């Protein structure tokens, strides 16, 4: 009986640990530059290039995530609208990860991020034949720094004209 009690307690402790560590990975990171990060997703514009006037070329992701944020969805809707107006243009979605992961997993993660962006473009009417996907994992950062802000700029999917 005492044994089962111990087990129960251990379980409780374990669950508590799990909850805590889950929280730890999602904690808010504040940076010195105002408004350029939300959670750990980059929201600034200093690395962003433009596909066309008013259409940013990239979207950013949280650590280990491939979920599109509200801002990302807005960017992709603008990209989709522009692509609909320019039906002869095809694109490559280049998926990237930050340096804080193992190389092979990050290759897969970059592919997953680029595909999240691709799926969204497709729901806004862009045919899958016009979109190819290329993952660079952590091999091609835009920012060579080793701090949360640099990493958040590097976790990205960039839409590049293919032709």
């Amino acid at each position, binding site marked *: 009986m005492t044994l089962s009690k111990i087990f129960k307690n251990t379980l409780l402790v374990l669950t508590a*640990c799990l909850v805590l*560590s889950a929280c*730890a990975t999602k904690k808010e990171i504040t940076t010195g530059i105002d408004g350029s990060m939300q959670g750990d997703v980059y929201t600034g514009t200093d690395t962003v290039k433009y596909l066309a006037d008013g259409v940013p070329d990239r979207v950013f992701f949280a650590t*280990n995530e*491939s979920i599109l944020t509200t801002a990302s969805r807005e960017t992709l809707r603008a990209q989709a609208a522009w692509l609909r107006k320019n039906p002869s243009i095809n694109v490559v979605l280049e998926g990237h990860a930050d*340096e*804080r*992961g*193992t*190389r*092979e*997993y990050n*290759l*897969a*993660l970059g*592919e*997953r991020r680029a*595909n*999240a962006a691709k*799926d969204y473009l497709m729901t806004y009417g862009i045919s899958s034949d016009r979109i190819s*996907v*290329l*993952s*660079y994992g952590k*091999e*091609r*950062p*835009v*920012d*060579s*720094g*080793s*701090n949360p802000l*640099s990493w958040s700029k590097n976790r990205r999917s960039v839409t590049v004209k293919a032709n």
Partner: protein
Amino acid sequence: MIKKFIALFLILIPINSFALIEVDITRGNLDPLPIAVSPLSIDEKSRKSFEKALKKENIGEEISSIVENNLKTSGLFNPLSKEAFLQAPDIANLKPRFEDWNLIKAQALITGKVNYVDDKLRVEFRLWDVLAAKEMMALAFTTVPSNWRRVGHIISDKVYERLTGEKGYFDTRIIYVAEEGPKTQRIKKLAIMDQDGFNNKFLTLGNELVLTPRFNPTSQMVTYLSYFKNLPRVYLLDIETGTQEVVGDFPGMTFAPRFSPEGKKIIMSFAKDGKSDIYTMDLENRIVERITNHPSIDTSPSYSPDGKYITFNSDRSGYQQIYIMKSNGSDVKRISFGNGLYGTPVWSPRGDLIAFTKLHKGKFYIGVMRTDGSGERLLTENYYQEAPSWSPNGRVLIFYRETKTDNKGEGFTAKLWSIDLTGYNERQIKTPTDASDPSWSSLLSN
């Protein structure tokens, strides 16, 4: 290069079975065995012939210093200073005066000689137990002179094996990725070198990104990831001929390749629609088999040495963890349960352990666990390091580590490091450029 060495033959192995000196390699060795490596003696005529052929003034001394360096870096031996040696190399090789070697506290002694015979290099060497005043081993072999560094490695392997009871790992090579340039535009090339960092050779020019090279069991083929024409695919390279080919015909990125233990298959990940699954391709009949089928990322597969199981990395639980399964993909079991994320599992050549990279609270660890996930042991902690690869005897791990070179975190250097399974004897392996993704070959001679 391996074929050239068939001329190797062994003579007279009078090994007596009573207990002589022994080195225990299962524990961290804080008291390495004092060993005297007497320079291989050489007659004047042979010395001149080798000087002409190899541009080395005294090839006997050169080979001895290779042996000395190997034994020292293993952490198990303490080669004594040659200045203290009382007996001349040629006389010591005939019959050591054990009192003299005892006096400088040597417990083991290596002697030998080199000859130039019919344009070949002939070596003989002996290992002596100084305290018991007995010969433990005597070997001789002949090879082409240009193999002189390998001669030093083979002697080291024989001595290591005789004194520890396990095969050595000195006559081996490392394939790795040589790196140059800023982080945002890193140039990467495949490179190969001897285990001690000598004979470095670049295998690609750096025109395209290359990653994660791994040897096949005979160490003549390499599988790796190349971004040739911006199509990331698994490639197969024959080191001798330089021929390369794409592995399989996949409509998307293939990555994380390794050979099966007998070298017949390549196991790798194929990424499609945001999912990565594990596939194999048979190199003889080109048949592709799907091993996992899951909406998660499944990657970094590595076979058990008997080929019956596969360990791999998956985030099917939400985050990166280590799993094992049967080689047909059935009986998937998660084995990593500690705090943090786990990646890059690699099965030990001895079969009993899996080495991995662990990420926890902003640190990277290289560690090992048993194949059921028990007995997790972290060997080394650092800001960033990953990708362990086993020495062929399963006693040492090589990996790579990035170190920041300024406090802003902008400058960095990537180097290869090795550490004993015991957690002791961590050391950097010298490379001409920055380096990553090392893979250790099998023993080239046996």
